[in-house]
């Protein structure tokens, strides 16, 4: 009886703690983070106030990421939106030894080969930024407005498959959110279930 009670109390504490921890909730300030990009530069979200920011969780071994990079879709989006002043950060939270983990040099080589147009690639092997945002899948997309408010948290689009043929006809939630917000309109679709492979935080989490 006591043991059951102890377990129940522990579970309740875990439950409460997870509620108290920073979560990335639409309509609230996006959690501030400090990360290191693949050139060794420090990137702080707070420094990006005044700009729209997109966070894109990435794992080059995940077939859902492969769908968007293999079709050129992700690179197109990066090019289009950085061209309009958006800061696009690709975040890799795979732990060392896990699928998707890359060194800074490997990241640079990969995104050069893929013709990536993101502003920077953040290497987050300890999963600090990932956990702050509760990034669950690759891809998992977040859009932050110039005031630092999170305006989108979810899937990249409405076709949760690995099929490249599904890219063309999909509704892209990131583009929709940015288009609406940039014209001063409220974001109609501010959340959706992110789809993809699980982020490979590794057993140290």
């Amino acid at each position, binding site marked *: 009886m006591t043991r059951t009670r102890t377990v129940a109390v522990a579970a*309740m504490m875990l439950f409460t703690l997870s509620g108290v921890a920073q979560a990335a909730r639409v309509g609230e300030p996006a959690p501030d983070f400090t990360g290191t990009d693949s050139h060794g530069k420090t990137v702080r979200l707070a420094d990006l106030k005044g700009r729209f920011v997109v966070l894109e969780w990435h794992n080059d071994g995940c077939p859902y990421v492969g769908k968007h990079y293999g079709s050129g879709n992700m690179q197109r989006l990066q090019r289009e939106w950085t061209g309009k002043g958006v800061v696009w950060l690709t975040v890799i939270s795979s732990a060392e030894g896990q699928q998707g983990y890359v060194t800074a040099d490997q990241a640079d080589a990969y995104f050069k080969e893929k013709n990536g147009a993101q502003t920077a690639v953040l290497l987050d092997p300890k999963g600090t930024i990932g956990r702050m945002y*509760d990034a*669950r899948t690759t891809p998992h997309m977040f859009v932050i407005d110039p005031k630092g408010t999170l305006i989108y948290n979810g899937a990249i689009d409405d076709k949760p498959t690995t099929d490249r043929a599904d890219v063309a006809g999909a509704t892209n939630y990131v583009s929709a959110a940015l288009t609406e917000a940039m014209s001063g309109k409220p974001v109609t679709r501010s959340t*959706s279930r992110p789809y993809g492979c699980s982020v490979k*935080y590794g057993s140290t989490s």
Partner: protein
Amino acid sequence: MGIRSTLITAAVAVACTASADAIPSRVVKGRYVTVELVAARQNGREVWAAVRFRLDPGWHVYWRNPGDSGEPPRIEWTHLPRGWSAGQIEWPTPQRISVDRLVNYGYTGEVLLPVRLTPPEHRSGPRPGSGDGAIVADVRWIVCHDVCVPGKATVGIPAGQIAAPASDEWAALIARARDSVPRPAPKSWRAAFREEPEAFTVSILMDRRAERGTFFPTDESRIDDAAPQQVSVSANTLRFRLRKSDQLPATPTVLRGVVVFTSGAAFEILAAGTNTDRPKSR
């Protein structure tokens, strides 16, 4: 909104003939999974087909709601005997599968996804066990361990095989799969939920002494799948406190789910919202 396409389109089959040569393999070995089509009679008159997934150890496929990541298998019936139609997948009770910080709902080892096939009203189509009819399905899935591998296969079976001796074994497999599909909750049960800023509290008043269980949400993005579920029992009432999903689109009017009791029994419940007309601040 994105309704995951796990449902079979209940389309009436095109009248096409399929010769023995043209029917795809019944069994296809994919990466980390072998996919197989079976079909048999059930309860005398009913005809059922099922796609069987036999998974390598450590690998899993997903339930209708995959949870934090992944994607449910999809079955498209590209050929049925003339006039026949296929129903929806009857999903066996899922398991809760933890992958690091995430929780998925799915199956390990082996799972069969049964589908009822309905013959045409006018009885002019091929009878099960006769003729040139064939049952062909395009199956797509993603199978995961710590990493994920998508797969697809076209599997087929001549309609004549439904009455063949081998179908006895298939009938038993299908029956067992159908037995493991959660049953609708008894009509005497009352299920309701209250919405709080951080969580839903689901209460189920049962017709018997309440037992502890696990809640599997049918719909995505309602609850935080990875958060521990607070479960309590008191007399005939089972209560869950379930942290809300960060991607909850709007206040739901109902919460659908499957409750799997520690004894293994599984029931579908539909909980009505009791305080959901008031706006909630988060």
